[in-house]
């Protein structure tokens, strides 16, 4: 019996990936969450972070936000910002990082935004290392 389930990452203008996976770790809003086959049906949304897909090979995606639905062993991630880690280029990261940092300094952002931005900066810094 296989221990795999299907995974789809969909952006508004493209199907980014459709594959099977053994384990997927998602940066859920309230903390990182690992999903294996047979997980309870679930709806949640994402904060900035890394989606880690473990199959025969490992794939990593950077996301800023998104919505996740898991049902019938089918994991669906809707996001407008997913980028595979291998394909992001360094300059782009720097722009994103600078953007986030300037935004964090603005006084009128809400707590929720501050929370998301700080994760974004942390993730981006980790990637660029």
């Amino acid at each position: 019996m296989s221990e795999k389930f299907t995974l789809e990452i969909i952006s508004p203008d493209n199907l980014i990936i459709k594959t099977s996976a053994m384990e997927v770790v998602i940066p859920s809003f309230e903390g990182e969450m690992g999903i294996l086959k047979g997980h309870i049906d679930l709806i949640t949304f994402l904060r900035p972070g890394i989606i880690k897909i473990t199959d025969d090979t490992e794939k990593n995606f950077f996301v800023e936000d998104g919505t996740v639905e898991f049902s019938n062993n089918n994991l669906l991630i809707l996001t407008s910002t997913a980028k595979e880690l291998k394909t992001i280029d360094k300059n782009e990261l720097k722009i994103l990082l600078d953007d986030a940092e300037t935004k964090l300094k603005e006084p009128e952002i809400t707590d929720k935004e501050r929370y998301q931005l700080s994760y974004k900066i942390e993730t981006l810094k980790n990637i660029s290392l």
Partner: protein
Amino acid sequence: MPSLDDLKKRIKSVKSTQKITKAMKMVAAAKLRKAQENAEKGRPYSKKMQNIILNLTKSINDPNNAPRLLVGTGKDKTYLCVVLTADRGLCGGFNSNICKLAKSNFKKILSEGKDLKIITVGSKGLDQIKREYGKYVIKKFSFKDNKQITFKEAEIVGNEVINLFNQNEFDKCILFFNNFKNVITQIPQAQQIIPADNKQANVTEESQLSYEFEPDEDEILEDLLPKNISTQVFKAFLENAASEQGSRMTAMDNATRNAGDLVDKLTINYNRSRQASITKELIEIISGAESL
């Protein structure tokens, strides 16, 4: 009877028009393929998003506390109509069809004594609507300079709608666009986006699953609903873009064919009158020779 010279000029002008329409058709065909691809790629996202929202809606126990974007303001007074059209003409009935549908809706809304507010996207729709309903237009968007429509543009429009909603500017929001069915058929559609239309809910009854939510339903909905508005707008953008190119292609194909027919007809006319003038000259010569 036009002179030979006039006919010649007309044939030439029709032929050059034909060249233009033919070129436009080719361009539209090339763009259509891309736009169609985009529209088809975009469909799963909006569909799945809608599904998640439906599932969430079912698990809300207390409708009084549900987010207003979902259940509406409870009133039915002011309507916001978002009309999506193209920025360019020469695409057959594409723009007129949307405007026709929108106008008939406007009429209905006004005749029921309700308030109307209009947002137009694309300059062609604005031109058609402002004649009759100009005073209701509160905002106009045009993305003429952007070659490719991305999610960002949809978000601009979506955020504007949400902003207006939060300021209690309207109770219901309807989106007008052309649904791309195939190259020849585009169906103008009116889709209600605020409050979320629950009519389709009964169709997907079999997917009644109990979900675990993290964080709780309300918070997810709060995050998801504004996104859904932009997603629906984006979907409408994509469908519209594909429809525009499809519509233009058919229109230009027809125009090219008509121009061909016209050239044939004019050529026959031209040859006849040329023949007639030759015969006339011959008769003149012969009768002149006979009289000698």
